[in-house]
């Protein structure tokens, strides 16, 4: 933590004592969300999400591969993430850091556990299946990559199209079918600062946090959870946050659906 972060974290804690945050925002309120889809012409699906000043880009590439031997009738779904050096002074070039790997795997698990993509539906024939590769590119970091990432991946998948596979070749046409997405999942990430818990932390709040909890839901069930960092949570904390997570489902789902209707 830099000395700037330490100074700000003291101030952030003071504000929270009075239920205030750095921005004029409630402790359980998301920042402004903006989603743009079909921003990458060469990808089968894409979405750019702005969550406050955090900006992430998700690109979907559909590739034909041989099925894995233990899942012969299923396609594949893989999420990867990169924290680009352009996104923050703290990010370095090199192979994915543990944080990038955690981000990818948490978003991946949320979508998988939510049964959003039926992998059986991606099977072409005995030797060919579609593999859906989703790459999450973090372009600007200002906190809460998990929720921005989940929104971006869900939105990109919701607007993806499956190319045609004929004569061992992938062909893109105007009449490509949309990728079938069966469910929508949403995620809410909370951070604990001192003994207060806030939703959707920005970068300064993340520098002050001791613990982070991401809860992913499909509106009726908790589909995935990930606690991060070295603070602790009580059962009461967790149960409260689950309730808030459910209460945010509809508003987040609306954001994703609004891009579909464009």
């Amino acid at each position: 933590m830099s000395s700037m972060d330490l100074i700000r974290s003291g101030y952030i804690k003071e504000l929270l004592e009075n239920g205030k945050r750095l921005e004029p925002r409630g402790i359980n309120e998301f920042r402004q969300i903006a989603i743009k889809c079909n921003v990458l012409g060469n990808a089968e699906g894409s979405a750019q999400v702005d969550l406050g000043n955090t900006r992430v880009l998700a690109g979907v590439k559909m590739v034909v591969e041989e099925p894995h031997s233990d899942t012969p009738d299923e396609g594949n779904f893989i999420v990867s993430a990169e924290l680009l050096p352009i996104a923050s002074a703290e990010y370095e070039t090199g192979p994915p850091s543990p944080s990038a790997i955690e981000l990818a795997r948490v978003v991946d698990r949320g979508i998988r556990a939510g049964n959003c993509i039926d992998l059986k539906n991606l099977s072409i024939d005995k030797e060919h299946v579609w593999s859906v590769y989703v790459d999450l590119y973090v372009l600007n970091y200002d906190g809460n990559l998990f929720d921005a990432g989940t929104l971006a991946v869900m939105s990109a998948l919701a607007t993806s199209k499956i190319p045609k596979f004929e004569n061992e070749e992938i062909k893109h046409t105007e009449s490509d079918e949309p990728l079938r997405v069966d469910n929508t999942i949403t995620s809410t990430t909370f951070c604990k600062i001192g003994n207060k818990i806030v939703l959707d932390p920005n970068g300064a709040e993340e520098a002050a946090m001791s613990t982070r909890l991401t809860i992913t839901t499909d509106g009726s069930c908790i589909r995935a959870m990930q606690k991060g960092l070295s603070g602790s949570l009580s059962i009461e904390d967790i149960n409260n946050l689950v309730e808030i997570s459910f209460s945010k489902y509809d508003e987040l789902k609306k954001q994703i659906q609004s891009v579909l209707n464009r």
Partner: protein
Amino acid sequence: MSHANKPELIINGKRTDGRDFNELRQLKIEAGILKNAAGSAYLEWGNNKVLAAVYGPREVVPKHLTDSTKAIVKCRYSMAPFSSLSEHGRSGPNRRATEISKVIKEVFENVIILNDYPGSEIDIFIEILQGDGGTRTAGITAAAVALASAGIAIRDLVYAVSAAKIGENLVIDPHMLEDNYSDADMPVAVSPKNKEILLLQMDGGYTREELKKAFEMIFTAGEKITEVQKDSIRKLYESVSK
């Protein structure tokens, strides 16, 4: 995992290994088993065989990572190439092991009294020699004993265990088959003193009620796990009179 050939996991109210829903697999721990490490523990949990070793506090490598106010913690969770029944794994970290190493490190960054060892590094190594579901929770449970046997100041002896859902039923401590075909799996690490949650991951589907019940099962199982951990440490000091 493909659900095409999903096996029957619950037959006549019992699990495939004959356990009740709230029954743990057999757990054995031996502390202080490696002579060079500052602390160590060997753990057998069901068919899991896990070795945990602690080195430090020692000099930080590379030097620029040093924090002059407290110790830094590094953790390496690794599955040996011969640990899995079905395949020969490649050695070296993969993405899953990297994530697991990170979340386990975060557990111990909480319980180790880092300020006691400024400018140093404490290394935790968790080697999975044989895996059968629940390797990260077994690793955490073993590493806690290794830290205690190293005499590194810790706030509490943490334990970890998973709760899973099979159909309508909640079960504690799933083995690999149950883990692969379950409808939800939730590994949790707990500091038993105040029942604080230090590691929480979950995927699948839980209702709010199921989540609450799963935590209760975890706390109950935790009491037994803690006893085994404590016994393994006390055993090091059993009176020797010749």
